[in-house]
């Protein structure tokens, strides 16, 4: 490049966009973390769901709770704000800053940068309005309603075009490892986001996801897990690869480690999603893949940690003086900790204890606070003096931020480990004699109140530290003035970006990988014996590949180096690598006729009113605290299963028609899968579940009525607000399109059914010897009360709760048949397993 004939050009980088994203990240970070702290206190004091406003406003606000700030609605706001607003904007700042410099050219389009930056902030504002309003799709980190989903896709495409256009214009022929990670981020997030948000709208603010039950759960956690992977990990790894060597002024530890851990990470990560559904009714082969790929993910993740920490070799002295290095070193260490904990929690036996408890919450926060938050802080402190051409306002404030934040994280994480493990153990502890459980659910909740308070303190400390960061950055910016770097760069002769797709794909390394993976996938799916042959082929191919590599290392290296000078073929191969895992896991469950895979139980359809109640359940975010999934584990079956049934864990067919699925991922309250029951004799409208209608009436009004240690918020507005009957025909029409076998009811039939059921449930509450009464309507006649409440949300909600988990038993004749694309069906069948598949296991074996 130092040839005499080299052309040079002068470039001014667009650092304005970087500054904007950085400021946005800090502002939203404070909002997101503050909401997190409020959520944390809500778990300790139910009054934090709104009643505290009575004291705060001096009685101006009156009420037991406020619907816009309940835990069920705020928790999605917290997660979305922290993931997409805080980390999202931070990642964009880092990507825009480093990509320009690694490409030695200004971002391709200032207009697209502006649209990206402002469009993203508008999306966040829209989320901050709709989520507290109870508008949600009911799937974690995918809650935003469909019009906002479309906006996200558009803005993401704008980002992608801007990014790849910049790559196309680059003056640096070869792509640095940071850019590989950015490419993986952009391509994979687009794929995940689009598939998991496929929905059919029923109105401007509501839609049903096209997948239901198991399929929806599978797609959700393919997305959810990889939101962590490709939104919270890969962009930050790219940022690490750029900013860490810069700050430490040291070369990266090992180039080959970059290559190996990049490709193995992006390929393996995608497969790990099912580890969020371990021990549930998810088919075993998917659980196996989820667990085993998670274990294989440990080394690639630690590859990133090693390349970060070992880059600091020779620069450790800076740890004492430079807050940037402090934050990076701690952030990467937390990354290592979290990515060790992840595979551990993916082991089915460990997961049996940890899942649905706060251990998972602790795990994500060691990643979010430690890795994302500290990497963000390190980057901000490094960038600010450069973006405003000045010195950092205060190193000691940055140091203080570090220590306050670190203590906050440790307090938080240790509190959550304690709470999670303690509650997990208590939930499974049997009483004297060994036939019953020792603790009621609420007793286990009471036991973890101290860790809960410590968690709130830890979170508050972290927020205070982050506030100090905001002040520091603000003061730094004020002390300097906005500055865009200008550099002179050499324009290379255009020899890059000339590789044809064929040259990228048809060569030894790709051929061995593709053939080897094909053999591995056949090994999963082929019938007995044929699968062993496939495994043998896979092993032989691996051996052959290693031999070929040893012999032709130079050629393989040459191919990868030239790939790095050709961004489109590189991107294509990344896409292939990330597309395989999801395809193998999800497509079979879409192809296998879902009616066949119900494990002997077929979900009963919802009545129109029950469906309306279900939508309310989703809107209120009940799934944030309640699961609907009894796992194949003794503590679950003993606690939630019915007397006299040996197989009363949740079966696949029980949630077959649920759009969205509501299996949940955390139990702050008990599981609800067995709350429902059949219609009472002689009624087509009133069901008798585990508890009766009046119990639910009193409980929604004041959960402390049922147990004084409950931390569930009261829901007084359900008694005042009317159920939306008008939208029901449209909703049911969409469900029919999605394959839910509702009869072809007319609009009037739907409306009439809903109203009749509402009346019947209201009568069960107000007629008879023991009417429930309703203080705000004192003096109203029974008939007036019945009429009012027949249309009320609380009655729709009760209708739904009393329906949850009801099913018909379907007994199949004859022995089970091996099914293609279902590895489990080929398993050596023992007698009991066979009986189970035939649905003969409702009695004792």
């Amino acid at each position: 490049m130092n040839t005499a004939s080299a052309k040079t050009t002068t470039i001014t980088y667009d650092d304005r966009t970087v500054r904007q994203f950085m400021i946005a990240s800090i502002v939203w970070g404070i909002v997101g973390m503050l909401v997190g702290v409020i959520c944390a206190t809500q778990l300790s004091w139910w009054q934090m769901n709104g009643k505290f406003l009575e004291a705060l406003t001096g009685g101006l606000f009156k009420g037991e709770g406020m619907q816009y700030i309940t835990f069920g609605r705020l928790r999605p706001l917290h997660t979305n704000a922290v993931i997409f607003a805080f980390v999202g904007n931070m990642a964009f700042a880092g990507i825009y800053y480093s990509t320009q410099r690694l490409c030695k050219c200004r971002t391709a389009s200032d207009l697209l940068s502006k649209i990206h930056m402002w469009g993203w902030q508008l999306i966040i504002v829209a989320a901050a309005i709709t989520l507290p309003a109870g508008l949600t799709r009911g799937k974690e980190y995918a809650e935003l309603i469909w019009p906002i989903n479309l906006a996200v896709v558009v803005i993401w495409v704008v980002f992608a075009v801007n990014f790849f256009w910049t790559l196309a214009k680059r003056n640096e022929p070869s792509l640095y490892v940071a850019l590989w990670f950015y490419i993986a981020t952009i391509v994979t997030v687009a794929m995940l986001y689009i598939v998991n948000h496929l929905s059919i709208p029923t109105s401007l603010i509501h839609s049903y996801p096209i997948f239901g039950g198991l399929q929806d759960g599978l797609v959700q956690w393919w997305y959810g897990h990889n939101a962590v992977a490709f939104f919270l990990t890969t962009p930050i790894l790219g940022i690490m690869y750029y900013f860490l060597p810069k700050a430490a002024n040291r070369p990266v530890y090992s180039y080959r480690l970059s290559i190996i851990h990049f490709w193995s990470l992006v390929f393996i990560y995608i497969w790990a999603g099912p580890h969020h559904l371990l021990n549930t009714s998810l088919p075993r082969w998917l659980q196996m893949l989820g667990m085993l790929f998670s274990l294989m993910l440990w080394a690639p993740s630690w590859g990133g940690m090693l390349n970060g920490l070992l880059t600091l070799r020779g620069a450790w002295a800076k740890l004492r003086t430079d807050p940037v290095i402090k934050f990076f070193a701690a952030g990467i260490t937390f990354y290592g900790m979290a990515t060790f904990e992840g595979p551990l929690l993916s082991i089915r036996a460990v997961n049996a204890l940890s899942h649905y408890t706060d251990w998972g919450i602790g795990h994500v926060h060691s990643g979010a606070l430690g890795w994302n938050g500290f990497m963000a802080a390190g980057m901000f402190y490094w960038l600010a003096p450069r973006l405003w051409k000045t010195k950092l306002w205060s190193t000691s404030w940055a140091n203080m931020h570090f220590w306050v934040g670190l203590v906050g994280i440790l307090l938080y994480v240790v509190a959550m480990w304690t709470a999670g493990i303690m509650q997990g153990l208590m939930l499974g502890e049997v009483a004297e004699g060994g036939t019953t459980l020792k603790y009621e659910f609420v007793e286990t909740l009471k036991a973890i109140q101290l860790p809960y308070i410590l968690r709130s303190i830890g979170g508050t400390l972290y927020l205070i530290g982050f506030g100090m960061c905001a002040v520091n950055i603000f003061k730094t910016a004020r002390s300097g003035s906005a500055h865009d770097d200008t550099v002179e760069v050499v324009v290379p002769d255009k020899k890059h970006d000339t590789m044809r797709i064929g040259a990228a794909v048809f060569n030894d390394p790709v051929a061995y990988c593709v053939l080897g993976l094909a053999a591995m996938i056949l090994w999963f799916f082929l019938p007995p014996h044929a699968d062993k042959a496939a495994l043998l082929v896979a092993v032989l191919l691996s051996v052959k590949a290693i031999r070929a590599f040893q012999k032709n290392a130079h050629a393989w290296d040459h191919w990868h180096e030239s790939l790095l000078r050709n961004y489109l073929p590189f991107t294509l191969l990344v896409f292939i690598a990330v597309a395989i895992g999801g395809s193998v896991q999800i497509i079979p469950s879409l192809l296998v006729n879902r009616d066949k895979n119900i494990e002997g139980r077929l979900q009963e359809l919802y009545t129109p009113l029950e469906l309306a109640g279900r939508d309310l359940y989703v809107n209120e975010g009940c799934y944030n605290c309640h699961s609907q999934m009894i796992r194949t584990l003794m503590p679950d079956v003993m606690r939630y299963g019915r007397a006299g049934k040996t197989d009363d864990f949740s079966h696949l067919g029980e949630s077959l028609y649920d759009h969205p699925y509501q299996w949940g991922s955390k139990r702050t309250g008990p599981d609800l899968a067995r709350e429902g029951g059949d219609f009472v004799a002689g009624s087509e409208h009133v069901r008798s579940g585990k508890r009766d209608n009046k119990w639910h009436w009193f409980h929604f009004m004041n959960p402390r009525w049922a147990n004084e240690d409950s931390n569930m918020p009261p829901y007084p507005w359900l008694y005042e607000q009317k159920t939306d009957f008008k939208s029901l025909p449209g909703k049911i029409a969409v469900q029919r399109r999605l394959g839910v076998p509702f009869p072809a009811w007319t609009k009037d039939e739907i409306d009439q059914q809903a109203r009749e059921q509402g009346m019947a449930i209201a009568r069960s509450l107000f007629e008879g010897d023991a009417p429930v009464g309703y203080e705000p309507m004192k003096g109203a006649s029974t008939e007036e009360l019945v009429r009012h409440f027949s249309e009320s949300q609380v009655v729709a909600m009760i209708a739904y709760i009393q329906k949850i988990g009801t099913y018909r038993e379907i007994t199949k004749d004859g022995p089970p048949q091996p099914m293609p694309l279902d590895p489990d069906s080929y398993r050596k069948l023992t007698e009991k397993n066979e009986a189970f598949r035939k649905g003969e296991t409702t009695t004792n074996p």
Partner: protein
Amino acid sequence: MNPEIKRGNYAKEKGEVILREHEYDGIQEFDQKLPNWWLFTFYGAIVWFVVYWGLYYHSNVYQTDQEKIIAQVGALQEKKDAELAATLASLDDETLIGKWSTDPAIVAAGEATYMVNCVACHAADLSATMDVAGNKIPLPGRALNDGVWEHGGKPMDVFKIINEGTPEGSTGLNGAKMQAWGQMLSPKQVAEVTAYLISRNSAEFAN
């Protein structure tokens, strides 16, 4: 940069550190071979994948989740039945009244269980009503202090209804039915709750 450091593309031997020729925006990269422990972690996880998959699908080492849980619950059910039979064999109306309901430790244990599981529907004072702004609002359960025992007033009848819930075929109280507490409570605990209820209605049961 340290002049002793070799320039080149790749490290060829363990321990060798090569500084790569190319720089990106001033960022340099070493190349060195990977630590063995890291490699073995990776290879080990891959090997374990194959081994575990093989063991599960081609041997009988592991049961399916369903086989396992059904067997466990079945065994538990047998144990429970035996426990109940043993309790019933040692329990009758006289024992419950004479011995259990007069033993303060047993009554206290029964009260503790009652306060966790039963108060919601039957109230702490057994009246099955709750006080809202001075009004007595009926709760879903039956009053347990009014001398009326819908499903039989003998101590063993009370034991039975707690253990098994509202009898099959009964329409319940205004449609409300009680769950079978024997699912959640051991026979001993059910007997303790029965003893507690007797102690709170001692005058009635004395006759």
